[in-house]
């Protein structure tokens, strides 16, 4: 990835970045109020994410402060006497989403970030997703490399515990690499059929 000004990636700091990124994707698909976006986010990411509506309001405010979303007070559809804030993308939203797609964040590897990207990815993001998946695969392999195997014979209790921890890490990383490989394969297959 070419070097990008820190200003443009500032919004990607913090643990809620996957949700902020996914919100940008949803805003680009169509504008919405906080509740609507929270529902769409929950539907898109699945039950395991536990999307909290209050969190979504807070994240939308953050995105507005950074200039990646803009809100307007609009009448509610079923009650015109009352209003609510509807969030819209700005001129910078699309570029920010593109940048997020190709950025492996310092907190990764955690699949959640990539999962959020996949949930709102546009077809034109396919090359960036492939890059991100390869980078993720590489990060997982590098983590695996840090966990040097210990000799399994004549073990002490401590060695046994260490070995089991190593086993847990390797099993987890293997699943992650498999998932990244499978997803790359599926995207490549899709692109081939498109040609």
């Amino acid at each position, binding site marked *: 990835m070419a070097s990008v000004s820190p200003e443009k990636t500032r919004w990607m700091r913090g643990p809620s970045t996957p949700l902020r990124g996914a919100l940008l994707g949803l805003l680009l698909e169509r504008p919405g109020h906080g509740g609507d976006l929270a529902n769409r986010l929950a539907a898109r990411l699945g039950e395991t994410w536990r999307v909290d509506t209050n969190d979504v309001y807070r994240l939308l405010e953050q995105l507005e402060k950074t200039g990646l979303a803009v809100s307007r007070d609009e009448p509610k559809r079923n009650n015109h006497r009352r209003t609510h804030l509807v969030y819209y993308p700005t001129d910078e939203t699309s570029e920010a989403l593109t940048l997020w797609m190709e950025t492996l964040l310092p907190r990764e590897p955690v699949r959640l970030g990539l999962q959020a990207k996949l949930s709102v990815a546009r077809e034109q993001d396919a090359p960036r997703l492939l890059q991100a998946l390869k980078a993720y695969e590489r990060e997982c392999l590098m983590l695996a*490399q840090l966990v040097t195997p210990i000799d399994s014979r004549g073990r002490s209790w401590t060695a046994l515990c260490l070995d089991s921890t190593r086993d847990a890490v390797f099993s987890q990383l*293997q699943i992650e690499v498999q998932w990244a490989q499978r997803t*790359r394969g599926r995207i*490549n297959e899709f692109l081939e059929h498109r040609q």
Partner: protein
Amino acid sequence: MTPLLSFANVSKRYNDGDRVIRVLDHVSLELEAGVSVGLYGARRSGKSTLLRLAAGITLPDEGSIRFEGRDISDMSGRERGRLLRDEIAFVSTADWRANPGESVLDHVATSLGSKGLTMREARRRALRVLEEVEIGAGSIEEPMSSLASAERARVMLARALAHEPLLLIADEAALTPNSGERDRFYALLRGAAAERRMALLMASEVLEAIGGTQVMMSIAAGEVVSTEARATVVPLTRRVGAERFGQ
């Protein structure tokens, strides 16, 4: 410095009925002498194809593979045979073959026929490597066919080590459901390669099996992802934490 083994834009395809399967797609990598590399991939991901290309058993459709600077594609079949016999050892229990009734010791010793050794010298060297891979004295006169798969894998390793190759290639060599035996085999493999400063290229569909190698690679959809940038394989500095646990 010329790398021991290099792949430059190597592609390999197979026909599967009407479909063309792209097993490797412009893969480039370099392996320096004395470095261990672990290749991880699911079944049918192209691991064995990459290893067989590295050993000169099959040739690429595109790109070039060089061993000590020599292009493998330019070699005659005889030259490639000599390469595989003298400088590269290929361990694969899938390709295991022994003469009926052949003992473990003879299986290893007779493979040294091309080395210009007397039978006594060959047996002595065979004994040494069999001991190194922990094949007990009680098993060496047993017929090969009587061995369990884990033991057989260690005999295959001994046979490869006896040739003192520059590059040891191991293709899912320890196909055993017992994870303890598998760990033991891979520890022996890494230890023997490190002690001899021999390059090691090993592949497995279990990520844990390739743990402890200096460079890890994964293969899928014809592409290789490496822990080393641009897939150039160079030794990594050992971690202090690993030393603490007797590694």
